[in-house]
């Protein structure tokens, strides 16, 4: 079982251009990271490109990892998620104009992905904070899940849920804040109140 300490050690070795550590890091995390990217991009092909780009960044940018502000997995997750979101948003026009093949590929990826809300539920269960789920209203859950797992922005969430934009903004904001409270109460996430500034 790979621990966060293992990951941190390997990242530190990657700074020194240790290829073996780089491979261990990849092998230990790629499945998880690809799952995240597929959730956002719906296309395995693009998700794998994002994964590849992300690990290029890891190799060249490992010295930028600061263990004091992020766990290794959080660091990796955010590299991949941000790349996937950027790709999603820059590629939206492309996707809309794309050929039939792409549509089929998207359907396949859709079948493979869990519904966002299920992922939210599973995540909180795995982190042993199931009760945080019950503290969120249904609309808050849906809105947070579409934002986090699908990379949708407020207007898109509003469209997906058939709800007014203002309501969606409120659901996401209040939902995430409530989640913060619940996670902090459970001792999960950054300590010391979380106000960084």
């Amino acid at each position, binding site marked *: 079982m790979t621990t966060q300490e293992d990951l941190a050690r390997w990242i530190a070795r990657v700074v020194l251009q240790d290829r073996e550590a780089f491979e261990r890091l990849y092998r230990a995390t790629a499945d998880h990271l690809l799952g995240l990217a597929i959730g956002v991009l719906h296309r395995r092909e693009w998700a*794998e490109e994002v994964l590849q780009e992300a690990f290029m960044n890891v190799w060249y940018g490992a010295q930028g990892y600061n263990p004091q502000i992020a766990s290794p997995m959080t660091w990796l997750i*955010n590299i991949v998620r941000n790349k996937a979101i950027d790709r999603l948003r820059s590629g939206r026009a492309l996707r809309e104009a794309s050929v039939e093949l792409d549509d089929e590929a998207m359907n396949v990826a859709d079948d*493979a992905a869990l519904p966002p809300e299920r992922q939210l539920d599973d995540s909180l269960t795995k982190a042993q904070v199931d009760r945080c789920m019950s503290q969120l209203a249904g609309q808050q859950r849906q809105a947070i899940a579409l934002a986090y797992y699908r990379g949708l922005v407020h207007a898109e969430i509003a469209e997906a849920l058939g709800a007014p934009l203002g309501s969606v903004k409120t659901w996401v904001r209040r939902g995430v804040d409530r989640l913060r409270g619940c996670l902090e109460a459970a001792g999960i996430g950054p300590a010391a109140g979380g106000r*960084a500034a």
Partner: protein
Amino acid sequence: MNYLLPERLDALAREYATGTLAGGARRRFERLVREQRAAQLAVAVWQQRLAVLAEGVPRVAPSPAVWAALQQRLFGGAHAAAARAAAAREPWWRTLGTTLFGTPALGGALAGVLLAVVVLRQQPDWLGHETYREQLPASYVGLLTDATGRPTVLASSRRHGRTLTVKLLQPLAVPPGKVAQLWALPKDGKPPFPVGTLPATGSGAVALADTSEKLFFTVDRLAVSFEPAPAAAGAAPAEGYLLSGHCVKLW
């Protein structure tokens, strides 16, 4: 607006970490994060908190080609042969069905679709002959101007790619019932051949019949005409060109 007010910063960091910060606001905030430690910390706190949400994401094993390509791109030459051999030993579409769908039967039924995608991706450059950071990848690039010389369409395609990316620099007034047809004009005097149709605005991707290298090697000009329907292979432009420009190799 003072982004560094603690409450403002916390709200922006929350939106950024959740993913709902978009467009210009997202880019501005990313710049702030690069430059300001307070912003960096605010984001880190939210990202760490929300990382819990990633726990339940279903794992998907990447194809062996991803690691092979990474090695090739990062470490180049010495790894290339080994990487290709590894990819050849285990073509990833063969294992894809089971990794993605669990059941081989379902996987098999969908493998055809995925295979088609895979084939599109199995190009030499994807395995990385380009240098990562500084250089643009070897590509064919065209800039088409209208009759007054205004740049109108930017087209580019990786040398060994099979997709042509197009960007409309200004909207194209495509008459109703017509399509904007892109043509490639070979320099050896051979007749123009159709490449694909363009969107009227924004960006698009044109799937190519072959790799750019094969299609555009002898092409030195691109042009656009309005046609009643997308031109088939072997067809000639029915109407005059509205846009044209050079097609050059970027390497």
